[in-house]
């Protein structure tokens, strides 16, 4: 199992947190970036709207970073950096924020991206008539004021630490207020931002062509003349396009092809460890999983190391808690000691404790995908060893989503990708007021601690609180923690200058192609 060994080596060196480049050093590494060329990008999924307040999926977010610039950027360390906001201050009580904008930034239509434009964008999301999902996120904002053309003041009704991180994505992309007025509801088809590329052509379901924006505010960038995005829903076909040379880069390489692509001298890869994690959500409000001992029994029965090798071909690491290593200092390696290892003995003991010494049966719901099917079959086999019967039931995504939102399930396999602030993962799932707490999980101490993490600044105290929260959540086991998966971006040897940011979004402003 050479792949597992490599992963273990990485883990042992603490390097699992770092980003692993493929073994083939790029020819052009270290050389000066060349200008020109068009990058052909393959993305799983598609685009319906490019209006940031209305976006719904990750493929739309992929394009946003080319057309728009966010107020704040994300660093490879998964922390917040400057974007359109050059510098910022937060008052000690956390209620007043001041943003200093980059001066002289213009939208693709030539209008200025100044404080008035920023205010107009934020107010558009706050307006109920817009119908943006981000309204609730920005709801602590009481007032937005343009103090002068490059200064924006925000007044909050309560401190909200995760707010700035939300300005690295959806709510942070600035649209030209002129264009929004001009196009109305059709704006999502005619996006106008301040990003490195402008919209040139959009053939629905076929491609989106972007062209270099010569007046981009980061001088000297972008290097590329253009980017062509193609939506490819079939993973096999997407990889065939990369291999045949009709694509230069793809958003994700499926686990079973990662080895072949890394070993092919024509390609290089960017590995982002722990950027997606599947889990089993257990409905704690209904039998059998309203019984904590039975939740723990399932957790002990699952063999995570075998899942890593058999389903993810070594491109993952076992998960002992909900917090992935992408969250750096918030990740607590101690979870592997207090969490659930594969231990059939303890699983049987927990079954006895839960009043089901001979095991029990439940329905494990999944989405009809090959990956989830394989995962569910393996878990079913693990559970069978201790006498638990999992009946697998597959649903189409929309139906499954409905069952999850309506809490009409016993156990369901889900998947998560990190939000820029850990709050987006933890509060959402484990607060009784969280938007994705379909498990009906409720622990008063956890609720309290989660509220506190929202009001104190990032730092040692917030880290300590999250370690405490993780420990409580692991004990309660509303999820069966499974693994943290490595996402792999695959690209031609000639593509350089792609930043490795753990949200797994490709940003092309400084990308270049070696001629």
């Amino acid at each position, binding site marked *: 199992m050479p792949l597992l060994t490599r992963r273990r080596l990485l883990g042992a060196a603490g390097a699992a947190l770092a980003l692993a480049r493929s073994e083939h050093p790029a020819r052009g590494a270290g050389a000066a970036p060349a200008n020109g060329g068009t990058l052909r990008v393959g993305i799983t999924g598609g685009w319906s*709207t490019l209006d940031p307040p209305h976006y719904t999926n990750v493929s739309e977010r992929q394009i946003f970073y080319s057309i728009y610039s966010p107020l704040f950027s994300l660093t490879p360390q998964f922390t917040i950096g400057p974007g359109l906001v050059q510098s910022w201050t937060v008052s000690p009580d956390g209620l007043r924020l001041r943003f200093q904008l980059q001066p002289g930034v213009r939208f693709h239509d030539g209008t200025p991206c100044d404080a008035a434009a920023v205010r107009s964008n934020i107010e558009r999301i706050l307006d109920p008539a817009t119908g943006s999902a981000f309204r609730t996120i920005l709801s602590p904002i009481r007032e937005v004021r343009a103090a002068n053309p490059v200064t924006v003041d925000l007044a909050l009704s309560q401190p909200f630490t995760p707010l700035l991180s939300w300005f690295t994505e959806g709510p942070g992309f600035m649209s030209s207020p002129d264009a929004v007025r001009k196009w109305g509801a059709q704006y999502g088809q005619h996006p106008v931002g301040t990003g490195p590329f402008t919209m040139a052509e959009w053939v629905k379901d076929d491609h989106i062509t972007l062209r270099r924006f010569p007046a981009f505010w980061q001088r000297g960038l972008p290097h590329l003349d253009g980017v062509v995005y193609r939506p490819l829903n079939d993973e096999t076909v997407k990889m065939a396009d990369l291999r045949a040379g009709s694509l230069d880069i793809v958003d994700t390489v499926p686990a079973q092809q990662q080895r072949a692509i890394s070993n092919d001298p024509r390609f290089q890869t960017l590995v982002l460890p722990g950027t997606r994690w599947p889990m089993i959500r257990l409905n704690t409000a209904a039998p059998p999983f309203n019984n904590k001992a039975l939740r723990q029994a399932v957790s002990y029965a699952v063999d995570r190391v075998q899942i890593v090798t058999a389903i993810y071909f070594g491109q993952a690491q076992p998960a002992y808690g909900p917090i992935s290593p992408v969250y750096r200092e918030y990740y607590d390696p101690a979870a592997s000691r207090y969490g659930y290892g594969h231990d059939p003995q303890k699983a049987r003991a927990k079954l006895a404790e839960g009043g089901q010494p001979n095991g029990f049966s439940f329905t494990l719901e999944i989405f009809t995908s090959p990956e989830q099917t394989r995962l569910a079959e393996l878990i079913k086999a693990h559970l069978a060893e201790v006498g638990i019967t999992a009946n697998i039931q597959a649903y189409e995504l*929309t139906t499954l989503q409905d069952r999850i939102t309506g809490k009409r399930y016993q156990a369901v396999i889900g998947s998560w990708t990190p939000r820029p602030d850990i709050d987006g993962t933890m509060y959402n799932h484990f607060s009784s007021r969280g938007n994705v707490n379909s498990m009906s999980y409720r622990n008063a101490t956890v609720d309290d601690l989660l509220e506190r993490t929202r009001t104190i600044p990032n730092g040692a105290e917030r880290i300590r609180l999250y370690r405490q929260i993780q420990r409580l959540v692991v004990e309660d086991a509303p999820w069966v923690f499974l693994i943290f998966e490595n996402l792999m971006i695959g690209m031609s040897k000639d593509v350089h200058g792609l930043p490795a940011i753990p949200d797994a979004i490709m940003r092309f402003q400084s990308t270049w192609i070696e001629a």
Partner: protein
Amino acid sequence: MLRFLVQRLILTVPMLVLLSIGIFLMLHLAPGDVVTLLLPEDLQNPQVARDLRHQLGLDQPLYVQYWRWVTHAARGDLGYSYRSRAYVWPEVAARIPVTFELTALAMAGAVAAAFPLGVIGALRRNTAADALISGFAALGLAMPAFWLGVLLILLFAVNLHWLPPSGYAPPGQGIGANLRRMILPTITLGIPYAAVVVRFVRLSVLDVVAADHVRTARAKGVGRWRVIVWHVLRGALIPIITVVALETGRLLGGAVVTETIFSLPGVGRLAVDSVLSRDLPILQAVTLFMALALIAANFAADVLYAWADPRVKYQ
């Protein structure tokens, strides 16, 4: 004849209305709520969901929603997509040429290949050639498009590098580039269709070969090829036209899968996406388009009957 066609045309209106009611009800009965899908997973907030439902008019009773749709549609306004908020008609119209080209190429290619094969199978029945042709037909029907398509991509695009794996080039960018991208989808879509047509051609030629007028023609000493072309094929045309028209439905259904595999921006792919995202306005328009295409195919068949068989008269 003209009167007959006008009558048929008028009859299609209630058909379309019933169809649109059916689609409307089916999509409402299907599990899954469009508003849930319009909000990112971590932002499923009841208040925002309520606002959005109101904005899209989904908080109205069903009959009000349907009546609003149908009265707008009657005036030529098909509304806008729930998901992209783009107007429906341009979304659908932009995709029609792709599906039209794909189905036309597949139909033409399939009929061109199937006709001679079916005739040979019938004239040489119970020989090795016949067995081979029938074998091809059985195999062609048995190969699912998602399997055949991926296999063709792996062989011709990844291994041999003869053709691009996927994507579309409009004919405006050069007919060569356009056709190169259509070859594999056409084969994928055309093979099961050709398989059906081969079997029908073979059967109907077999029927006619045994008919009295053919025997009489032979007895009169008419040449072998003249008998086949003038007496056999002409007589066999009616059932063949029928199956070609009826199987247009299969072709449009196959286009759904084929377009998805080869990433072609056609109506079929739009249909799948709109079902999965419960995007009712788009789905209504797509279904109406497909229904009209089927009706047009049957129209064409009716016209061709009269041409193929002068005894056919429409009152």
